[in-house]
């Protein structure tokens, strides 16, 4: 459709260039004059959204790479330093991490849209296959990016995923060694993943160019699936599609910003705030949410090789879709049976995603197998069969004809599928409740929760005192420097007070001119000294369990919220699992071990600690720390104060994040409104 353009720039300089490289003509014919079907709905804006997200990911990624260190001993720390010390580092990191999720969210909408409206059918097969290739590249990029922060989930996710290749007979082990560059996941693996994670987005961008090229040759599909026939069926890309895409992008930005500014860790895993440890596997390894359906397929097959093959087939099968579904009618809108099955398939995918996050036991395994069969049956049985037996409704003669008639009714299958999904959720929920032995930490009221949350300065100062007098005997706080105490959004000390506080500490420095190490009073730039020189010493001094560093503890601890809470949490911005757990754990000690529970020698019973046997003795008791401001000196108050302090330590820029978030939202809402009215005006004649 985009033939040679007759566009001629009027500016002589541009004319000069155009004669030698007709780039302005290309741009004009592709993005201005390009005819786009006039009946496109908002699902079609996701193409623009995806291009935008790719741009954002590359931009933020290149910037983050300027501050990141791809070395096993430093990677985790360098990410924390980006978030804490680089100007707006927290924003860039959140944009990139959340951006990956948003990118996948948009790509799934884009794919389901293609599936529903038959955008893979003749003559758009190559366009569709290029899309599948982009999706595969995205999965590889996303996986390698998740490894880079080098937390526990990064490390163990990398171990599990690379081990998938060991399933291949004969060559499997050699392939895995080749991927690792060692005998296990380690520094060489991190280095090459960083290199590839930097490379692949540019490959994606290259394939995207091919994708758009193929799109502009075949022309866009549309909700009615009939090709544009006359001028009346199309509108020019600019301004019609451009303004609509802009409105789509600005709405998407609202969702994106909701995560960036208000719940950056909602889509992540608390375990990834624990530095990678090759000696300890987390109890429950979960990939990022966008891989979960495939992970569920992998786990539901009891044979290892077959599981790996099934997982890859689940993606590869998409590439064969144009030939599996040979129905002549393109749009599912006019295929009553296909419509029912499409929505069932959507629910199957969502449920598989849910199951991928559940432990592989009991009813989850059975449900996983049933749904895996459903997933493949949709492609291999339902679609080929439907294309032979289904009688589609008549399609409109032209796009302009269909624009006039616009009624809609909800497919009965949506209701059926939703009820089935609800029943299954309820079933698994009961199962999950039965499996739970541990009490859930009670939700507390925190001054820092919600969109306008701020730290209670008094609580921060009291919490610092509790940390210093009690916790610091065993626990480090190694990412917090004394200077942080005087920073905005912190405990509110002056620079002089922070210096005085620092000088109370002895810090090891050196070597001096004699080559010896020496001790000197702390300075604001120094970090809180750790009570033990290394992990082994900490372990030895504490009965085999090393007290964890507390800098990130409120982000590194969480508990299962379960369905449906995790959905409500998205709207209420509940982000305080970590603080709730820490505060509850500090108060959860009980002298009397309940009936039927045995705990090992040298451990203490704690109601909220997973497994109940904790090596830490009850750390707080009433009246232990004196307060100058008259606050009650009770365990409950101590726990609350020290947890508030630790939440600040885990995210010193939280107030800045929420403040900026509010400004961004005000701007975006106004901007989206303007876009909407401009769009209405532009489209007034087209509808």
């Amino acid at each position, binding site marked *: 459709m985009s033939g040679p353009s007759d566009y001629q720039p009027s500016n002589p300089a541009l004319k000069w260039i155009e004669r030698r490289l007709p780039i302005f003509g290309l741009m004009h014919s592709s993005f201005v004059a390009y005819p786009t079907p006039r009946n496109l709905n908002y699902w079609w804006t996701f193409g623009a959204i995806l291009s935008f997200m790719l741009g954002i990911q590359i931009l933020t990624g290149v910037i983050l790479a300027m501050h990141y260190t791809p070395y096993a001993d430093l990677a985790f720390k360098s990410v924390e330093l980006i978030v804490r010390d680089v100007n707006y580092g927290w924003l860039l990191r959140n944009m990139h991490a959340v951006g990956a999720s948003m990118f996948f969210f948009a790509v799934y909408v884009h794919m389901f849209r293609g599936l529903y409206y038959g955008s893979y059918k003749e003559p758009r097969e190559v366009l569709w296959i290029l899309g599948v290739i982009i999706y595969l590249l995205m999965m590889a990029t996303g996986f390698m990016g998740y490894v880079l922060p080098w937390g526990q989930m990064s490390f163990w996710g990398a*171990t599990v995923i690379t081990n998938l290749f060991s399933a291949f007979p004969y060559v499997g082990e050699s392939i895995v060694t080749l991927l690792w560059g060692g005998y296990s996941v380690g520094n060489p693996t991190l280095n090459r993943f960083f290199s590839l994670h930097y490379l692949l987005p540019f490959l994606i961008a290259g394939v995207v160019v091919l994708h758009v090229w193929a799109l502009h040759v075949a022309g866009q599909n549309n909700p009615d699936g009939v090709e544009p026939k006359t001028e009346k069926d199309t509108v020019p890309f600019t301004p019609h599609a451009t303004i609509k895409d802009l409105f789509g992008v600005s709405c998407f930005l609202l969702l994106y910003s909701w995560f960036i500014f208000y719940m950056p860790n909602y889509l992540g895993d608390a375990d990834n705030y624990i530095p990678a440890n090759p*000696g300890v596997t987390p109890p429950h390894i979960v990939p990022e949410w966008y891989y979960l359906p495939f992970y569920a397929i992998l786990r539901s097959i009891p044979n290892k090789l077959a599981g790996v093959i099934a997982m890859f087939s689940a993606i590869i099968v998409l590439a064969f879709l144009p030939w599996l579904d040979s129905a002549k009618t393109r749009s599912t809108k006019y295929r009553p049976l296909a419509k029912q099955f499409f929505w069932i398939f959507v629910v199957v995918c969502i449920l598989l995603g849910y199951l991928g996050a559940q432990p*592989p036991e009991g009813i989850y395994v059975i449900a996983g197998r049933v749904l895996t069969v459903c997933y493949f049956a949709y492609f291999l049985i339902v679609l080929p069969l439907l294309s032979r037996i289904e009688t589609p409704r008549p399609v409109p003669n032209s796009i302009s004809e269909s624009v006039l008639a616009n009624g809609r009714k909800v497919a009965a299958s949506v209701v059926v599928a939703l009820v089935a999904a609800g029943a299954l959720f309820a079933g698994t929920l009961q199962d999950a409740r039965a499996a739970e032995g541990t009490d859930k930490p009670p939700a507390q009221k925190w001054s820092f929760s919600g969109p306008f949350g701020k730290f209670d300065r008094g609580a921060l100062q009291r919490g610092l005192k509790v940390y210093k007098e009690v916790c610091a005997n065993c626990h480090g706080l190694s990412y917090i420097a004394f200077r942080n105490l005087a920073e905005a959004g912190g405990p509110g000390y002056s620079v002089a007070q922070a210096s005085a506080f620092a000088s109370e500490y002895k810090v090891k420095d050196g070597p001096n001119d004699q080559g010896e190490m020496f001790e000197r009073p702390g300075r604001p730039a120094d970090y809180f000294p750790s009570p033990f020189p290394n992990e082994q010493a900490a372990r030895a001094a504490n009965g085999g369990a090393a007290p964890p560093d507390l800098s990130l503890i409120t982000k590194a601890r969480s508990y299962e919220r379960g369905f449906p809470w995790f959905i409500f949490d998205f709207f209420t911005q509940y982000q305080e699992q970590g603080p709730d757990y820490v505060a509850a754990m500090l108060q959860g000690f009980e002298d009397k071990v309940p009936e039927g529970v045995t705990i090992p020698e040298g451990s203490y019973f704690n109601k909220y600690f997973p497994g109940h046997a904790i090596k830490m003795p009850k750390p707080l008791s009433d009246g232990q720390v004196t307060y100058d401001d008259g606050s009650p000196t009770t365990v409950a108050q101590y726990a609350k104060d020290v947890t508030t302090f630790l939440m600040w330590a885990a995210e010193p820029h939280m107030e800045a994040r929420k403040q900026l978030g509010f400004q961004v939202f005000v701007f975006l809402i106004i901007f989206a409104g303007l876009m909407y009215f401009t769009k209405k005006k532009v489209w007034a004649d087209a509808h």
Partner: protein
Amino acid sequence: MGGVATLWPFISQMNPDASTIAAGAPIEVDLTPVAEGQDIKVFWRGKPIYVSHRTKKQIEEARAVNVASLPDPQSDEARVKAGHEQWLVVIGICTHLGCIPIAHEGNYDGFFCPCHGSQYDSSGRIRQGPAPANLPVPPYQFVSDTKIQIG
């Protein structure tokens, strides 16, 4: 030919480099501090190696099983060194997807993998779950009665 030969260095560089291979040299482990019923975890080539001092009961359990009925048939005798039956030395990496199984857990007095629920017996053989093979026995030999060399 030339093309393939040129390609080789670009692929070969991905394999473990000289220092990684050198760091993977054999290590010696002293067994004296490991009491009966206890086990230690040592790292060799970045992999955790479980050295278990098995109890009489564990050895008997491992030997009472009908070998032919196992998913990956292997007798306990073939997995330990003759004369040192109490010592089980296995690579503590689940043969499913590489997590580290927990010792002394599961239904078979052996190992339990927390990731996908594979269970190994007191000889490190797979008994239940998705893992296809037994925990591998690393190359090792007894230097003396109380010392082994792994590698």
